[in-house]
């Protein structure tokens, strides 16, 4: 398990030099336009707003956050399915942010993606053999006969019957389709696989199969994963390090054991306390720190700390003015909070009191 030290302030992030992927101050703004022919930008959705991190070879970085926090946009920026507005993405020491389509092509063999919805991400009119073999053809890796052998090999690797080569996606169940998605991502022997909610559309028993499969493949092929999910249990199970995002920014990054044992950011604490526990005794004692309201709009993010309107430890005159940098807590653990949690677990009212805050936040 590799850990990387993330620097103190996001904009000052300095990579150690041996990372496979370095993301530095990446921003993605989607313009909001008015008018039909002469489109005038009247604002922008700041989906990702200055995110920096690095991943080492063989590591799994989990990214969690509520819907709309920018985690999928970030994933798409990493594999250049979207062009980032600002910042740089360095893969194996090479800045790929400004590369042309042709220059990108060899790099697309090195990083692939697994998508969320196994029903929408496979072309229903193509046979499974074609779907898995297409990346090989695109990159001109082998003769048709070789491609066929490789596809059958891949089907076997992901636990499907190689004889199902000629079937269509609709003949498979959800879990099997996700296996096809995994086989396709593996086809070109990538170094990095970006998994965007690969198990959230699946039933628990099938989810366990896919998670085990991804772990086995990592051991066998030395893969590096960026693993996005909104389920904290799933992320903890698969990741080495976990990054919590809130409204386009990093809230906290830590080794997974550290993050789940001693979270520093109140948002991480709220997320952890909200997960239902499948044990009636423990579960009913659990006291969720219920966050009031919804995630604010990324068009007009709140001033200062973006979490301050919902934060139980909000301090007026500080949190709503000064945007907190990523403060270090040792061992690569960083959190963007002026008043980090002193201990864990904590109850909601303790959280409020302990901060020495200037006012009690009034529940809506």
């Amino acid at each position, binding site marked *: 398990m590799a850990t990387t030290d993330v620097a103190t302030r996001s904009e000052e992030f300095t990579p150690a030099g041996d990372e496979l992927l370095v993301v530095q101050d990446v921003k993605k703004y989607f313009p909001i336009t008015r008018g039909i022919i002469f489109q005038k930008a009247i604002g922008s959705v700041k989906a990702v707003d200055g995110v920096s991190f690095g991943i080492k070879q063989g590591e799994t970085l989990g990214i969690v956050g509520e819907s709309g926090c920018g985690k999928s946009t970030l994933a798409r920026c990493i594999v250049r399915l979207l062009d980032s507005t600002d910042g740089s993405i360095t893969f194996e020491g090479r800045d790929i942010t400004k590369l042309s389509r042709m220059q990108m092509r060899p790099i697309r063999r090195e990083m692939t993606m697994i998508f969320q919805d196994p029903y929408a991400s496979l072309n229903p009119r193509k046979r499974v053999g074609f779907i898995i073999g297409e990346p090989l053809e695109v990159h001109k890796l082998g003769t048709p006969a070789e491609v066929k052998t490789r596809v059958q090999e891949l089907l076997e690797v992901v636990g499907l019957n190689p004889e199902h080569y000629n079937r269509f996606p609709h003949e498979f169940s959800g879990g099997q389709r996700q296996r096809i998605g995994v086989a396709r991502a593996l086809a070109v022997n990538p170094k990095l696989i970006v998994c965007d909610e690969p198990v959230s559309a699946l*039933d628990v028993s099938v989810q366990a199969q896919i*998670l085990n499969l991804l772990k086995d493949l990592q051991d066998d092929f030395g893969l590096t994963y960026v693993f996005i999910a909104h389920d904290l249990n799933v992320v903890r199970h698969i990741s080495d390090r976990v990054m919590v995002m809130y409204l386009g920014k990093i809230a906290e990054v830590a080794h997974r*054991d550290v993050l789940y044992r001693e979270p520093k950011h109140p948002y991480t604490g709220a997320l952890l306390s909200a997960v239902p526990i499948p044990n009636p005794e423990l579960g009913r004692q659990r006291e969720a720190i219920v966050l009031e309201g919804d995630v604010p709009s990324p068009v007009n993010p709140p001033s200062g700390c973006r979490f301050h309107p919902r934060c139980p430890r909000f301090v007026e005159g500080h949190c709503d003015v000064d945007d907190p940098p990523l403060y270090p807590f040792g061992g690569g653990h960083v959190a963007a909070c002026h008043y980090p949690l002193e201990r864990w677990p904590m109850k909601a009212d303790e959280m409020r009191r302990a901060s020495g805050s200037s006012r009690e936040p009034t529940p809506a």
Partner: protein
Amino acid sequence: MALLEVKDLRTSFKTEDGIVKAVDGVSFSVEKGQTLGIVGESGCGKSVTCLTIMGLNSKRNTVSSGEAMWKGKNLLTAKQRELREIRGDEMSMIFQDPMTSLNPVHTIGRQLVEAVQLHRDVTNRVARARALELLKAVGIPKAEQRIDDYPHQFSGGMRQRVMIAMALINDPDLLIADEPTTALDVTTQAQILSLMKRLQQDFGSAIIIITHDLGVVAETADDVLVMYAAKVVEQANVNDLFNRPQHPYTWGLMGSLPRLEADLERLVQIPGQPPSLLRPPRGCRFHPRCPYVMNICRETEPELDPSQRDPAHLQRCHLDEETKEREAEKLLHTTLAEAG
């Protein structure tokens, strides 16, 4: 007397490929103020069970039999007119997807008022006041202004609150919640679940909660029904179910769950896929995926029998009691040991 008593409920659909038995002999009862959880994977018949009770299946291709006694009346044989009076009044439902279950061309206020006026002969003003009261009860901020908004102006969590307000507007005796939090984020899920708990305390309604999330069941339900391939495989009080699970499928469900309080290198996985209900397996329906399969399992289907230790704990498995106790102990031991 139980509020709702379901006996040997069966529902089958005629399809081009043959008859699908989606629910095959399900029995349970719900008491006032109690919460019943129904767990299972997609396609196990948990939603169809509730749709059948509510009389919401298409009449064209559905055949239902059995009994669903609601206050002395069998809902399965009741006339549409009678059902319409019960639905939304005495018994109401929250659907899974708040994005598609509200009418996009009417304001939420109008939809709530309609729900009241269908069952009560009241003026617009009274109905609107009631709608406003409920929107406040479910925690919609600035309800006075938001009552005239359209569904698309609300976020997912807020829409689900509107759905809950609509379901509760006539003080139902029974609330059926079909995966009420599946489409939501954990923080919103926590808000909605605590809201449902609070409303249950205030109104004393019974709740049937359908979910595939064992965590949600553990925290909300009093009794639990585990369904697999259209049948109930285990039925018990929530504490018994989680402390002494008796069926290999339940063990599989519990083992395949990554947990915050336990750290396992590999998850226990249930091999294979749920069977097709067009041609369910002979014998025990779980036998093709069961690690404890014996010869008898392939031939004879086990009955839903009370376990020796506790007659209220029903399970459908041929394994002997000793093995079950041992395996359940092992499962709990590993997860708890890891937690400590």
